[in-house]
């Protein structure tokens, strides 16, 4: 049984279709196995070898993975929420109410998105502190540290732009205060604020801009940066920082 399954798989891998997709035939040698990994967009993020130590809980507390899983949860629930949401006044707030009053499991859906967002901010921060105290910003990880910092900023912007979307009093005033802080920037503050809000007040234009930022621009940035981040983890030699690195010697 097992043999026939394996031979069927073997035959499958010999087919033209398989080869056209994976650019490789059967991975029957170490070289072809390595090439299969390198030649695959998703698998090439993965290390060829993993140290058992780096899989330990204490090595990372899986904070990066937790952040990523939360991001996926947010991505999926966010798409569902988009089915029910209009970025316009007064529909936006009414759509929130409809999620509560009409949509089946709407409260669950929205709370999942909201809680996952809070948790993600929390997890990303913890991840950053953890990496910082473990000295993870030191060579050869400097570049990935910078990417990580950018990811933290993207996470915060996602959280902030999402905060306006319910279009309630909390959202309105949080964004009013936040954008007023921006306008305190010297020289360009008011221009930046105008650009962000699409006007001088938190109105329908601001809602639309925040919506586009929240569902298109920032997630795109996040995906690209996450890709680079994961890839560089492996390129920089795995996620654990070796004890000898902690002395500053290479």
């Amino acid at each position, binding site marked *: 049984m097992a043999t026939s399954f394996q031979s069927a798989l073997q035959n499958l891998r010999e087919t033209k279709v398989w080869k056209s997709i994976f650019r490789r035939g059967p991975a029957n040698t170490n070289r072809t196995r390595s090439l299969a990994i390198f030649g695959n967009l998703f698998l090439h993020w993965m290390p060829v070898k993993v140290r*058992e*130590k780096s*899989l*330990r809980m204490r090595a990372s507390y899986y904070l990066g993975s937790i952040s990523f899983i939360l991001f996926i949860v947010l991505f999926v629930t966010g798409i569902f929420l988009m089915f029910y949401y209009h970025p316009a006044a007064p529909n936006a707030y*009414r759509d929130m*109410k*409809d999620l*509560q*009053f*009409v949509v*089946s*499991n709407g*409260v*669950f859906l929205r709370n999942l998105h909201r809680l996952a967002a809070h948790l993600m901010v929390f997890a990303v921060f913890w991840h950053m502190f953890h990496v910082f105290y473990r000295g993870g910003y030191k060579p050869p990880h400097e570049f990935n540290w910078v990417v990580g910092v950018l990811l933290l900023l993207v996470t915060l912007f996602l959280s902030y732009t999402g905060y306006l979307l319910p279009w*309630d009093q909390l959202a309105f005033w949080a964004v009013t205060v936040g954008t007023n802080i921006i306008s305190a920037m010297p020289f360009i503050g008011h221009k930046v604020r105008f650009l962000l809000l699409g006007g001088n007040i938190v109105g329908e234009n601001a809602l639309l801009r925040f919506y586009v930022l929240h569902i298109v621009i920032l997630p795109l940035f996040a995906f690209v940066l996450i890709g680079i981040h994961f890839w560089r983890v492996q390129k920089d030699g795995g996620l654990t920082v070796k004890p000898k690195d902690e002395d500053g010697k290479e």
Partner: protein
Amino acid sequence: MPAEEMGKVTDRMRFVFAVSSLIFLAVLAISPFKDYRREWKQYKRSYLRFAQGRPDTKRLTADYSPDIDQIWLPGMNLVDRCTTCHQGITQASLADKSVPEPFRVHPPIPHNVREWGCTICHRGQGPATEVAEAHESTLAWEQPVLPTHFIQASCGTCHQSDLPQTPQLARGRQLLAELNCQGCHKMQGIDRPAMLGPDLSSIGTKVSREWIYKWLKEPRTIVDKDGNVTVNGYETQEEPRMPKFRLTETEIRALTAFLSVQKARPFAPYKISPAVVATWSKNPELISQGELRFRQMFCSTCHSLAVTRAGETKLIGGDIAPELTKVGSKVNPGWLIAWLRDPQAYLPHTRMPRYGWSDEDLYKVTQYVTTKLVDSDLLSGVPKLDAPADAEIQLGHRLFAEKGCASCHVIEGLNPQKDFGPDLSALGGKNASELEFGTAKIPHNLVSYIQAKLEDPVSVNPAARMPQYTWNQADLDAVTTALLSMKGAPATSALQNLVVPRKEASFRATGSFAEVYERYKCYTCHKFNGYGGDLAPDLTYEGSRAQRQWLVEFLKSPQTLRPTLILRMPQFNMSDKDAATLADYLSMVMQHPAVNPAGVDAKQFTPAMATLGKQLYEVKYQCQSCHTIGGSGGYVGPNLNNAGGWLTPAWIEAWLKNPQALVPDSMEPRRNFTDEEIKALTAYLMTLRAGIQPQKTASNTRALAWGHGAGK
């Protein structure tokens, strides 16, 4: 875990994985389970069970669907899902009290629920599908369902004119106007009365400083049988309009000082002929004669007196003008004589008519007022007040504006502060979070706030400048209703289109009529083209109804009126010229378009027709069950003793054809008389003559609405 075991799957790990997977699944299942148990789904299922237990199941469940029901009116920006649970709202068979809520039918109203939705009247959160969210004030919703007791407020939000179905609202609006709330607050749709509080420009000539002191301390003078200063509980709706201000002793002294020097228009003293004084001053009948004249002139049509009978004090008389129980202790006697002779000289806009007085009557009545309508204890609590000092007058001058006195009372050269009180035109739509409750221990909702503020303004705001009013519960609720109806400008144009504006009544008297009309203040009681009071008959079509000669006689001597009425037309002692001017104007101008007084010639009536008419009157139609002729008959309709001298034949004919076409709210039944019968009845009525016997009296004795009534 030792390093060599890393990567190996142990039984313990399998167990932990299995258990955590199950917990995870269970957690995920909570949401669908809660979804199934949602409140509205339970109400849906219970309605189905309820309907199946009734004989008319088929009709009750014809529109049933297990989903959310909603009334969606995009133009009004309204989504009401109330009918999801209130499923029997249009089922007439569910009217019985035994039908459990929320399935009972809506009581009949002029609007179709399906076309108007629910929250437009009841408020609450229409899109909500949970009981608490829909009805109450919650974290994210502050417009709870309006208590049914105040539901008329919702009628008033669109219907800015009064409806017969909303007496509570109408009373509230009337009170807002009457109490001159407009003096301090901005409000829409409430008339500002022409005369607010009395003009105080010359108050120093009218009353003493002591009396002002007493009045500011307690603006009521009548004491009930327990010695309490109150007017509530008397058989009258009247309440002194002056509220009680919270004033310190210094403030009262300052205000009395300031007011007692207001003598802008000193009255010209009038000396009653010494011959009259000599004849009457020794006459023991003087006072009782004065009282008789007071009654005969029907002063009590407008003024009331407190009368104590069998231990119960009642105010008897009209409530258009101040009650006069203790007026003898209030006013300066010289002022009183001058006032009675020419009220407009003291107050140009007063509604008090200018009577034609003989010295004899004037002497008798003023003697009666100053000796009988007095209370020697009235000023007993007042300390000795010296001549006002300049500093006191200055302070009083400032306080008069600061305390809001100037918002109601005119003093020449003193302007009221602008926007003295908050704008109330959108009060009825306010959220509880927009209101200041202070330390008051009351529920935090709009209705409680309004009532607490009205009952005791200081309870919600210790710094309130609003004075203290005295309410009975019905009036408090009425004013609350009127305030709740003011929700500001409608939010959408569709809602704007629903507003039924008030009909602006206007009537401009012209020529020599205007002068007489102003002098006798006819509009205080009578309506002209919709403008004026509603105490006495509407005179809009009086020219079509009454014969000119009858009008002249009536105006000169309106003494024989229906005995069952307390409020009657005063005896003005009108001159022939004035009576002729009024009668001419009424018969020329106040015409009904469909009635031509000259259109029916009285000469065409023959005695035979009159005989037939008499028969029809007495036998066929039995008019005597409501009307009186020659001392027998009913009192529902007017006395017809003098119908032939009073009414025009054209009016009688038009009236018999269709009384409601002439007076829409008339009680006269519409009988389908034939043309011949109408001619015969008119002929008969035109034969009825009984000297000068004016018959038609107030068909409507409702208290006069200040707001709709007098003034300019």
